């Protein structure tokens, strides 16, 4: 008997039903659940954004908070001081971050390995201190921070981040089997060999870096609009770099859906930990990071692929 739907169509139907369900959530769920889902989606974009650059090229980006904070700052200031409508302020922040990332990537991506990671931390720390100094006070309000009201409802915010997360995953999926994605993987495996094969490694790395900064920046803008507040230590917080890394490690580095799964699972773990073990939250967080690296470096999806439960495909 012929199946009612081909496998491809069944997957499409599944995605359609899931999206319809997610879109309809604000109509019946409580604010708590909408907030939780909003955070999951924000961190999904952060993690996917980190993964699209670091997971594929092998260059650990320890400056994710830099992209998040920079874009968040630009859009928050536009909303607070210049009365921009949020829908216009967000992309301006993200595009600004993308443009600055061209320069940053061009300069810093020549530095390899651990040094790149350290220089990104240095960039984040330096930018944080710079935004807090009195010299930039007229623009950034200094260290006291910027409280603002964007006039956006929780449901609208949720739908916005849902759309962004959807497109982020679609982009990651497309990249996973594109030639661009393969070129990035070649850089991860052996950069010299990649160069010998005629891959313009610096250019490919910069493109991935900008894409990552843009997506993450957009999510960062939404994040700080949701918080209604921004200040330097909050915007360029190392936690905003570490959490997405842990989430990606959790789900599986270099996979398409790993960041989504990691962000979802880890946000729930975070909720429980934060409620039960507030004072020791960071210790448990650090412990999880260590255990993941030592015993579980391939992540959940990698583990499932290794055992043959999931097909060994780059598309997952």
């Amino acid at each position, binding site marked *: 008997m012929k199946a009612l739907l081909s496998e491809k169509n069944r997957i499409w139907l599944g995605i359609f039903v899931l999206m319809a369900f997610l879109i309809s959530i604000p109509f019946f769920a409580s604010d708590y659940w909408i907030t939780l889902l909003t955070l999951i989606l924000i961190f999904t974009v952060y993690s996917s954004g980190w993964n699209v650059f670091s997971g594929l090229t092998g260059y*650990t980006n320890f400056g994710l908070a830099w992209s998040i904070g920079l874009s968040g700052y630009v859009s928050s200031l536009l909303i607070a001081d210049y009365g921009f409508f949020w829908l216009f302020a967000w992309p301006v922040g993200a595009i600004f971050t993308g443009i600055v990332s061209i320069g940053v990537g061009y300069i810093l991506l020549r530095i390899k390995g651990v040094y790149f990671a350290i220089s990104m931390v240095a960039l984040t720390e*330096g930018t944080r201190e710079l935004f807090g100094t009195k010299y930039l006070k007229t623009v950034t309000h200094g260290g006291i921070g910027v409280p603002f009201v964007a006039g956006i409802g929780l449901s609208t915010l949720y739908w916005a981040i849902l759309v962004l997360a959807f497109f982020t995953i679609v982009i990651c999926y497309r990249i996973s089997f594109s030639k661009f994605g393969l070129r990035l993987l070649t850089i991860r495996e052996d950069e010299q060999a990649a160069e010998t094969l005629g891959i313009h490694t610096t250019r490919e790395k910069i493109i991935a870096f900008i894409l990552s900064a843009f997506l993450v920046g957009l999510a960062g803008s939404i994040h700080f609009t949701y918080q209604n507040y921004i200040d330097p230590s909050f915007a360029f917080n190392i936690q905003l770099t570490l959490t997405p890394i842990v989430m990606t490690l959790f789900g599986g580095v270099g996979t398409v859906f790993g960041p989504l799964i990691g962000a979802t699972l880890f946000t729930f773990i975070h909720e429980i930990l934060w409620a039960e073990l507030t004072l020791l939250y960071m210790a448990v967080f650090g412990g999880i990071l260590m255990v993941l*690296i030592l015993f579980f470096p391939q992540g959940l999806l990698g583990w499932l692929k290794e055992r043959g439960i999931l097909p060994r495909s780059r598309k997952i």
Partner: protein
Amino acid sequence: MANFAELFMRGLMLGSVYALVGMGLTLVWGVVGLVNVAHGEFVMLGAYFAFWAFSLLHLNPLFSVALAIPVFFVAGVLIHRQITERLVKEHELSALILTFGMSILIWNLAQFFWTNTYRSVPYLTGNFTFMGLVLSKGKTVSFVLAMVITAALFLFLKYSSWGKAIRATSQNPEVALVCGIDTMKMRMITYGMGIGLGGAAGAIISLQWVIFPQMGASYISRAFAIVVLGGLGNIHGALAGGLIIGTLEAMVTQYLSAKMAQIIPSVTILIILLVRPTGLFKK
């Protein structure tokens, strides 16, 4: 002019302690091949070690500094044997993320048990005059202690058989292994020495600066700047780098602001990596 000389001395004294922190980091990085992001946390633990020895056991802080070295050495050896040795053959970024986790784990535990209170060891307060310069007693003693430990380290690495074996392991692990050097043991000893240096630096720091559970972060960022300035694995470079960073910090604090002084490590790292990624000095 006396003011400037005092400022310069203050910078050097600060720098000698930073150099001690930086040397521990660069030693482990160069020989073991691991970036120990948790190094700053061992500095913090060293500081608390001296603090508790002073306030609970009424131990002379100078004695705690000497005691911190063997205690932290053993701790480092154990940590390396149990945890970090597994990562020696892995991608270097695994160690980076793992030690980041370790760093968070340690400072949060310290915060949990010892609270966020700022503490200090009230020992050797006040100033004295030397050749027309007014110097702080505590800082001068720290400077002398840091220099003694540095000199001991240099002599150890240069002349002792372990020191030679460590340098051989650093230069070429395979050849060292073929020559009959137990490189695994040398990595363990080096890791212990790195942590021991960190602990000693922390104990010295507690003599005059305030200590708190999250102090490690500011020391690790300076230590990274020092390693980058001096060149990876270069102990002498780290000493020079530490003195440079300390002097710069004293100057910027004096003439600009304390806030600007905090940007020094990040700016140094970025500039040196772009202009001269091998560090300022020849190995």
